[in-house]
């Protein structure tokens, strides 16, 4: 008899196994999110928005109301829902291309306006759905379909530091963190705090999750895990970047 690990209660069993590739990080991020939703008991109030790119495969992932939007536009759609009905808990789920390239103006302005929504962004350093092109977050010298000789930082700049940027432009009340699928317990605690921040109406909340794309990285399990656990954090530092009330404490 095989024992299956328990699925989060808010997952939709009818749509499992999920649509992501083997080894993909999305399943792990969505597991952390599912457990956070369960523990907070907000399944009846959550609206889950997903972007274009691999994140759209999550449109029927949960037993929660879900909206699949356009590339980069999940942030404004969730903003619109939240502004119209503030009782709902709005989660905008996207990849790094959606958040940091095509939808960056929406992310920046939603953060600046301190929208009471939660953005969860899976970072895998490539445009995965479209076949592995260079993303804003592709690591220096990392190979991608549109950077076949490796990302040349002289020509294309350095990877976007999303949480650092969001932390810099938000004011008191925002929650910003970077977690990783290599530490699910921590990632879940960040997502939970982000959702709590929204529930308490404090302000914008943002969690980036370091995630894997073995399909486009063309890596085996060992190399995939090594990249997520060892390589990515060299550039993308894991931890909380902004916590409501922290600045006041520092002054004491």
């Amino acid at each position, binding site marked *: 008899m095989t024992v299956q690990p328990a699925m989060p209660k808010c997952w939709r069993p009818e749509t499992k196994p999920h649509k992501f590739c083997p080894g993909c990080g999305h399943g792990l991020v969505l597991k952390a999110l599912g457990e956070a939703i369960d523990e907070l008991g907000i399944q009846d109030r959550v609206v889950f928005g997903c972007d274009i790119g691999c994140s759209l495969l999550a449109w029927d992932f949960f037993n929660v109301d879900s909206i699949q939007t356009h590339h980069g536009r999940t942030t404004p759609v969730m903003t619109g829902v939240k502004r119209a009905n503030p009782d709902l808990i709005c989660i905008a789920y996207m990849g790094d291309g959606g958040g940091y390239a095509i939808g960056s*103006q929406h992310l920046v302005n939603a953060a600046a306006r301190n929208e009471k929504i939660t953005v969860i962004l899976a970072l895998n350093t490539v445009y995965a759905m479209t076949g592995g092109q260079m993303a804003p977050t592709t690591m220096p010298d990392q190979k991608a379909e549109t950077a076949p000789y490796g990302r040349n930082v002289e020509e294309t700049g350095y990877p976007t530091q999303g949480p650092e940027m969001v932390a810099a432009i938000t004011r008191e009340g925002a929650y910003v963190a970077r977690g990783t699928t290599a530490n699910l317990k921590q990632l879940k605690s960040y997502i939970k705090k982000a959702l709590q921040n929204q529930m308490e109406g404090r302000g914008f909340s943002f969690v980036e999750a370091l995630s894997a794309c073995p399909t486009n990285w063309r890596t085996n399990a060992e190399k995939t895990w090594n990249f997520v656990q060892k390589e990515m954090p060299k550039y993308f530092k894991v931890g909380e970047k902004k916590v409501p009330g922290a600045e006041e404490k520092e002054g004491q």
Partner: protein
Amino acid sequence: MSEKLITEEKRVFMTGNEVVAWAAVAAGAEIMYGYPITPQNEIMHYWTRLAPKYNRKFLQTEDELSAGFTTVGGVMAGRKAFTATAGPGNTLMQEPMSMAEAMRLPTVTIVQQRGGPSTATVIYSQQEVTMTTFGGNGEGLRIVYSTANHQELFDYTIKAFNVAWKYRFPTFVLGDGYQAKMRESLTVYDPEQKGIEFVPAEPYVGKPGTPGVDREPGHYRNTYNVEEELYEVLQGYFKDYAKMAEEVAEYQAFDTEDADVVVLSHGVVSRGAKEAVEQLRKEGKKVGYFRPITLRPLPEKELKELAGKAKKFLIVESAQGQFAKLIKDVIYGASVEIVPFFKPGVGITTDEIVGKVNEIL
């Protein structure tokens, strides 16, 4: 604080943008999402002054993409939501409105046309007809009212919310810079006192109960895995659209029965056309007037019928044939001769139309 902005019918003297804001309040619009662009700005200005007094909301977004997508979010939350735009803003608005078409979302968008292409002028045109009727990567699954005066701006803005929520197609009120900025008399009223019933808004997300426990979750998407799946969904939409078209298409016409020349126009240009036809008729000339109020869907039956009777259609518009293209598509195969009178981005006077008709009679 009064519960209603308009408690009794009265005459007022307003700009078109103010009329739209009043109409939206009267129609029960709950939230506006907007981004500044001339000549629609004052819709937001008046709305933001009225909104807090009548428990309505406003969000100024970072661009028109966001204004459109937040409007999409607003309607999905079950609120009567709207936005307003023009010109290059309308170009950006096509992306969210294409999502509204794909997911049958009852957004309301007011467009005050300005010159094009590109930034062009902030003044006036009828050059946003193609984009407003068939913009986006889709099939024009939308409703577009082209208004001619301030009374219509009021009437059709109210109607737009009802039609959008009844049929669940994104709905547009197509005005222009002249209508936006001009001051004119009209009668405002409380729609309910007039017997206009409000079609209630309904939430797509956030309905009572826990999804998967008490009810099915609302899973809304605009992406499909296979060709056949999309094809089937679209066939259903086309069927609904055709049924809706019969009930929604509107037009005005007079003196067309024995007319040799029928002047076709829409929007503010039809005011000049109407006067021209009336004047020419007084001179005993066989001239008729036809003006679609809905550009999507068009009154196809009436147009086809007319095209089989009249000798010539004089199509008058402040664009290089955008309206004419819509008409020609409907009447394809008819014997009527089409005479164009196009002044892209420029207003057209009664005298000019009279002159043109006399030339071709």
